């Protein structure tokens, strides 16, 4: 199918985008990499009056490291994140997740910020930024504000971003030396939408979990920080018994969607499978430190 009619604006500055977002709000859509927006336009699931193309806004591009934080500009493409030595060094979780993001042609266009702004339930990057406790930087004509990941993902494609706000960048604290991270997902083919997935960031000393953030995605309406599962593993060794306790607790943390990818029961089962695998992998990585 072909996209519906819209008014196309090739933005020249962030200020111009903010002005137009203030004017048009929800009637405008921001076109970044277009790897999710273009399909919805082509299928006419989205019919914005105004399409704001931000691809020439160089201010929103690039990756830098400052004061313990990695800053990823919203318009940085997935391929740049994937190939970045800064990401490889400071954010191994994201480096491990990135090859799972769709396919090469999509990673060449799709943007990091677009993924965070859209908050697709099966997307990898929202889960990673939640696991790593990142901060989203939003701007509007009303000013600049920051939202921590724990408060940012609200629901299915729903975030704390207001219709007049533009995601500018994401600030992600570097992974500390005594922490390990593990990213795993299950999909029908490589690069397909994840049916179940886990992003895990943990401090494990002598096989005992001192601290952990377990984030689940794919099965849920939004990435979920599994508080009860985390409580079940904190201070415990990663024995079979404590892994089972985590898996049992997951039933209270998760509320899997019922769709063509499987029933809620199937997805809970798959998330438990991933939990056991991810915890084993985390222990293995901690031992190698």
């Amino acid at each position, binding site marked *: 199918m072909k996209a519906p009619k819209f008014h196309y604006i090739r933005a020249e500055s962030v200020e111009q985008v903010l002005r137009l977002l203030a004017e048009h709000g929800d009637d405008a859509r921001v076109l970044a990499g277009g790897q999710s927006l273009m399909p919805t336009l082509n299928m006419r699931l989205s019919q914005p009056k105004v399409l704001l193309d931000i691809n020439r806004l160089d201010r929103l591009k690039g990756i830098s490291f400052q004061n313990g934080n990695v800053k990823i500009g919203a318009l940085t493409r997935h391929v740049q994140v994937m190939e970045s030595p800064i990401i490889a060094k400071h954010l191994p979780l994201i480096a491990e997740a990135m090859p799972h993001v769709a396919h090469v042609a999509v990673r060449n*266009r799709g943007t990091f910020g677009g993924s965070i702004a859209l908050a697709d339930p099966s997307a990898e990057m929202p889960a990673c930024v939640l696991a790593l406790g990142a901060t989203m930087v939003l701007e509007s004509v009303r000013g600049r504000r920051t939202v921590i990941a724990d408060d940012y993902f609200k629901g299915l494609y729903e975030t704390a971003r207001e219709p007049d706000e533009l995601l500018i960048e994401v600030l992600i604290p570097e992974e500390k030396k005594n922490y390990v991270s593990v990213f795993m997902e299950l999909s029908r083919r490589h690069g397909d939408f994840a049916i179940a997935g886990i992003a895990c960031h943990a401090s494990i000393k002598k096989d005992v979990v001192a601290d952990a953030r377990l984030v689940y995605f794919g099965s849920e309406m939004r990435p979920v920080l599994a508080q009860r599962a985390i409580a079940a593993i904190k201070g415990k060794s990663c024995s079979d018994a404590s892994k089972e306790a985590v898996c049992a607790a997951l039933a209270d943390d998760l509320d899997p969607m019922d769709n063509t990818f499987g029933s809620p029961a199937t997805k809970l089962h798959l998330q438990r499978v991933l939990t056991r695998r991810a915890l084993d992998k985390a222990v293995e990585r901690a031992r190698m430190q």
Partner: protein
Amino acid sequence: MNLEETIQINLTVNGERVSRAVPVRQHLVDFLRIDLGLTGSHIGCEHGICGACSVRVDGAVVRGCLMLAAQADGAEVVTIEGLTESGEIADLQTSFVERNAFQCGYCTPGMLVTAAALLQQGKPATREEIRIFLSGNFCRCSGYHAIVDAVEATLNKRISR
């Protein structure tokens, strides 16, 4: 809003400069096929799943259906026609024929454009890695085995050269 909004774009397609006014909502592959007659890039799903419309934009393989022609202003676009003419993938194309790596041929241009990106990396790749690299391109006839064979054979030949 009833009138079709257009925009002027200037770009390079297969090495030739092109200037056209295009509808702002027209995607790149429709522009290439309809306006320029470059029908080698195919249209399959038109929502970024099948990979039949893969083209090279500023050196990177992209989905032709997930980019507006308006966004290609200032870009260098190379289609399967350009890759064929330059001879860049002549060995890959020969390998596809030798191995019979297609039946209906609908996915073939997209497969070749994506495989060309893998070959450009100039690094060895296992069959599994080749499969992952091509995972965004659907083939509904061949079962993929022969395609992987053809890409693997070409890659190995180039590396041993």
